[in-house]
């Protein structure tokens, strides 16, 4: 199974770092799409076939938590595998994400930690 991945982060440098890390991770990839905030992510999700979303929390226009809330409230995306990639790691945030079935990778991350989380979330080898 090859994955179509959406990387959502307001920092273009961080998006590039995540994409490079994805390519080094050994996870089988098909297409990688990008969005700079939650609103752009919704547009991508409605126009592309996405298997996995990697989402930052703090973003302008629409942040990661609002994006996740909207996706989980939409039947089409209720089961979409989502991994939050963020510096924020408070217990409150982790609990909210767990309730919504969202995994978490802390910045800075290694290719190993990202690939392990992707494999556990998607079952991709």
């Amino acid at each position, binding site marked *: 199974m090859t994955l179509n991945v959406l990387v959502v982060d*307001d*920092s*273009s*440098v*961080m998006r*590039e*770092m995540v994409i*490079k890390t994805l390519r080094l991770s050994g996870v089988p990839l098909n297409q990688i799409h990008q969005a700079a905030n939650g609103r752009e992510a919704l547009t991508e999700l409605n126009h592309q076939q996405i298997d996995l979303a990697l989402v930052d929390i*703090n973003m*302008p226009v629409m942040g990661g938590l609002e994006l996740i809330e909207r996706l989980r409230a939409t039947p089409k995306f209720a089961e979409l595998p989502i991994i939050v990639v*963020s*510096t*924020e*790691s*408070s*217990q*409150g*945030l982790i609990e909210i994400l767990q309730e919504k079935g969202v995994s978490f990778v802390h*910045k*800075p991350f290694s290719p190993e930690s990202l690939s392990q989380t992707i494999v556990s979330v998607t079952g991709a080898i």
Partner: protein
Amino acid sequence: MITDNPQGALCRTAVQIFEDLAFMLPTLELREQQLGAGLGASVSIGFSGYCAGRLSLSIADSVLPELTANMLGETEIPSQLQQRDALGELANVICGNLLPRLFGAASFRLDPPDFQAKESFTLNQTPIASSDIGLGNGRAQVMLFVDRYGNEQ
């Protein structure tokens, strides 16, 4: 309640992030050339929650292109926009990793990067921790300011 020594925590966190995110070899004992490198671009990350304040990061102009290229895994000189973006992301990650070291499980909200002259961040205020870090032939300066705790106005 602060759970770690602010100065030590700031140094350890900043060094770790420069290593892990920008693949640099930071030093806390600066050479004369590094000490003489003027600081150029600056960014501040405001935070609120258990306490409110900001972390500022200033960096020598001679270092920022290399640091950004390392983050991008590129050999070409990155654009000014990419350099600014990289500086903001570094400050964000340093701040996000430092606060839990200092304040344990307390919750914080981080603001977007604020790119202004260093003086506007430091005017009339003393940081609770400050560190100069040698990077290549230049340096970075990281400072942590706490304005108020809890619900103080």
